[in-house]
């Protein structure tokens, strides 16, 4: 696995919020097509790491490289275009837009027709618009959401809203997909289905996935590599077996 291409390389990443060191000297390497887990107790800084990777918070120190290119300092929309997409812990769909429009929106951020071709409905606009509709429907098929494509996002059941968030993120054409607790609020059956689909998505689209989860068991089942955070610092990093047997991890999760 280590011989394959590196997609994301994080070196000595840290951020301060006032006097609080929220994340401290984090190192992480994610390879092409890898499914990587980021776990840790509540408040360990997992979501903060996501916010730094996507440009929402500028890191105080360290570097983030996407396929060798340094991306810290870039704005969120630039980073999205370079190929990092994400979902949210609390669902943040565009609730008053239809399911299809949610996907078209992220697909559209990459289409290269502009204001004027859009206004004057030039042929290029039509061709691209059709291609985008087509792609949106194919993406929706991955999660069997095609039949719901004209519904408003807010009218979807909870589990489907979570899935739609993943589809919308795929519309960004990511090289790296960040999933922030995708199984939160799901029952065990739904969670199992979701995990299977995540694996399918990774293989079908050839992307790398970084997954935040609370549930150790779940992450252990599908991730190839795991980093454990505790109080903003890296506690351990390795394969699921290594993590499971790491005494530091066990004490952080279960207490001394």
């Amino acid at each position, binding site marked *: 696995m280590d011989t394959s291409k590196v997609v994301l390389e994080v070196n000595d990443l840290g951020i301060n919020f006032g006097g609080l060191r929220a994340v401290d000297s984090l190192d992480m390497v994610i390879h092409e097509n890898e499914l990587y887990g980021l776990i840790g107790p509540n408040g360990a800084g997992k979501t903060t790491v996501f916010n730094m990777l996507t440009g929402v918070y500028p890191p105080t120190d360290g570097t983030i490289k996407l396929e060798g290119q340094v991306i810290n300092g870039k704005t969120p929309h630039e980073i999205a275009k370079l190929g990092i997409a994400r979902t949210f812990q609390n669902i943040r769909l565009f609730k008053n837009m239809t399911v299809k429009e949610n996907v078209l*929106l992220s697909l559209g951020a990459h289409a290269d027709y502009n204001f004027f071709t859009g206004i004057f409905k030039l042929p290029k606009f039509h061709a691209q618009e059709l291609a985008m509709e087509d792609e949106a429907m194919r993406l929706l098929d991955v999660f069997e959401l095609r039949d719901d494509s004209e519904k408003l996002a807010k009218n979807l059941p909870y589990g489907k809203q979570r899935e739609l968030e993943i589809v919308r993120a795929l519309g*960004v054409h990511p090289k790296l997909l960040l999933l922030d607790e995708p199984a939160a609020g799901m029952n065990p059956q739904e969670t199992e289905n979701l995990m299977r689909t995540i694996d399918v998505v990774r293989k079908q689209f050839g992307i790398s996935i970084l997954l935040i989860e609370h549930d150790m068991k779940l992450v252990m089942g599908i991730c190839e590599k795991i980093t454990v955070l505790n109080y903003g610092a890296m506690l351990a990093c390795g394969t699921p077996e290594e993590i499971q047997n790491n005494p530091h991890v066990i004490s952080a999760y279960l207490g001394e």
Partner: protein
Amino acid sequence: MSGVVMFFMQIINGLNIGSIYALIALGYTMVYGIAKLINFAHGDIIMVGAYLSLVLLNTGMHWSLATILSILGCALLGFTMEKVAYKPLRKASRISLLITAIGMSYLLQNSFQIIFSANPKPYPAFIHLPALKIGSITISSNYYTTFIVSVFLMIVLNLYIKKTKMGKAMRSVAEDEGAARLMGINVDQTISLTFIIGTGLAAVAGILYSNCYTIISPTMGSLPGIKAFIAAVLGGIGSIPGAVLGGFILGMVETLVKAYISSQLADTIVFLILIVMLVFKPAGILGKNVKEKV
């Protein structure tokens, strides 16, 4: 004139002024929806549009070219206004933005007073089409042109926002700016575009308004601007169909009050509507009730 004919004439008057209010209210509501800013200088864009077209028409320019250039001029002003005055304050409190917007309004009014003097100027109306006769009702070309142009622009705007990718980007920024950014939407560009479209529409409103009233002054934008703002609140600020509905309701109420109750009371009643609306249904007719997050 019989009572029925008189009533229809008033309805037509109401549609005329209502469509102008609606055009202006669209700019208010779009900017509010996306930048969460009440742009009080928006009404003054009508005035800027009117003066620009006056100056261009006086050079002997054809009205079509003069109109296009005035719209572009106002759009450029809207774009600049956002970049210079509002963008640096985007992270500041809402009240700072509101005060800046009021300041911007006075800046525009006063600079036009310096350039063109405070005296009203005659406007060379250029809409000279045959009047429309339906039975004993005669509708002058200004009236039906204003109505047709406004409705046409509202339909185009609606399609633009519903169908195009920039329109979708606008709606996504209005709903959740942060999430839109993370999906690759350039929020700055989207806000600029909103200002450009809003001020462009206000310029059209200004030119149509001047064609009806044929007298323009540096403060001509303030009262229609405030009324359009009321229209936007009435319909539900942030809602595009709401702005159109609010504009027509307000125009109609104002005209009917002028005709049947008292022309002096017209503005009082319009402002009373705002107060009543804010007390009983602050979200407006088509607005959503926003639940306070706990």
